[in-house]
């Protein structure tokens, strides 16, 4: 293993620790609050809003290769996925396949 690889191994483990900190802290806190409580409801709202925000950011302001596409192309791809998902009575596989397979074709329009 080269010096650089050793350094990057340490850096990766440090990042893993920084990530685990929140996971472990969550387990610790969860042991101390009541699930019927208002605080618990609020935390659940925060978790869902955070995920929704992250995903809508990926659609509206993507990073990397996706950023070369237009907003309507990404939105239409999501819409196709949702329509197929609904028509197949909630089949994730078909919904995602349809929506993402349509995307490269939408880019040619």
């Amino acid at each position, binding site marked *: 293993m080269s010096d650089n*690889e050793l350094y*990057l*191994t340490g*850096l*990766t*483990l*440090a*990042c893993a620790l*920084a*990530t*685990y*900190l*929140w*996971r472990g*802290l*969550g*387990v*610790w*806190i*969860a*042991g101390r609050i009541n699930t019927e409580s*208002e605080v618990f*409801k*609020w*935390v*659940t*709202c*925060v*978790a*869902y*809003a*955070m*995920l*929704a*925000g*992250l*995903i*809508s*950011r*990926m*659609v*509206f*302001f993507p990073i*990397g*290769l*996706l950023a070369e*596409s237009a907003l309507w192309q*990404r939105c239409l*791809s*999501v819409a196709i*996925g*949702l329509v197929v*998902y609904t028509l197949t009575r909630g089949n*994730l*596989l078909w*919904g995602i396949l349809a*929506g*993402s*397979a349509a995307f*490269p074709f939408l880019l040619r329009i």
Partner: protein
Amino acid sequence: VLAVSAAFRLGQKEAISGPAIFLSIGYIGFGTLAKAQGLTWYLTVLNCAAIWALPGQIIFVEMKALGASSLAIVMAVGLSAFRFLPMTVSLLPVLRGDVKTNWRHYAGAQVLAMSAWTFAMRRCPEMPQAERMPYYLGFGTTMVSVCTVAALIGFFLSSAMPKALTLMFLMSNPLFFVLLLWPSRTDPMLGWALFFGCFVGPIAYTLSPNSSVVVTGFAGGTLAYLLTRWQRAKVAK
């Protein structure tokens, strides 16, 4: 009631029959990125297994490529993982029931990610208590192992992949989560949380990309919580 091992296998089966495949697509993309930015295959595998949070992993690779300092990288990755706090706090009572928190719960938190969280939140409440943790662990460990292999595939195949396929892989990521969260919109409280999150997310991102995820969660989640409380109070009158 299923035996513990049967519940574990059910988790494995549900992961492999959909979520693991879609997240793999994202991880093939990650492997491609890691190769392009000069990581070795060993570091790519370690990154997946140890960090196990795709946004943080992408931040790691991109900041490294930009030549950021070690401290800045650790801080950015750590901050991006803040979402695990409300996720574990809300998931654990569902998994644990009235069992006391033990080391298994701390170990299990390592395999938590968006998909395992969404599936467990949806499936576990209807399961007997003894099946919940094995189901979650079966699901989570399958996700980690399948996706790590997927990253390796992306790493070694990146140069041979046509651009259309790469684009399809990239687009499947947001799609997966949109469809996964779609059924939750009918819950009055969660519906509002998703709605406000969708609006606040992109706005917060244009104002401050680094803190946008955390800000969105607190702002959107609090709005949703207050609105539902206000609606409940109105109905009660």
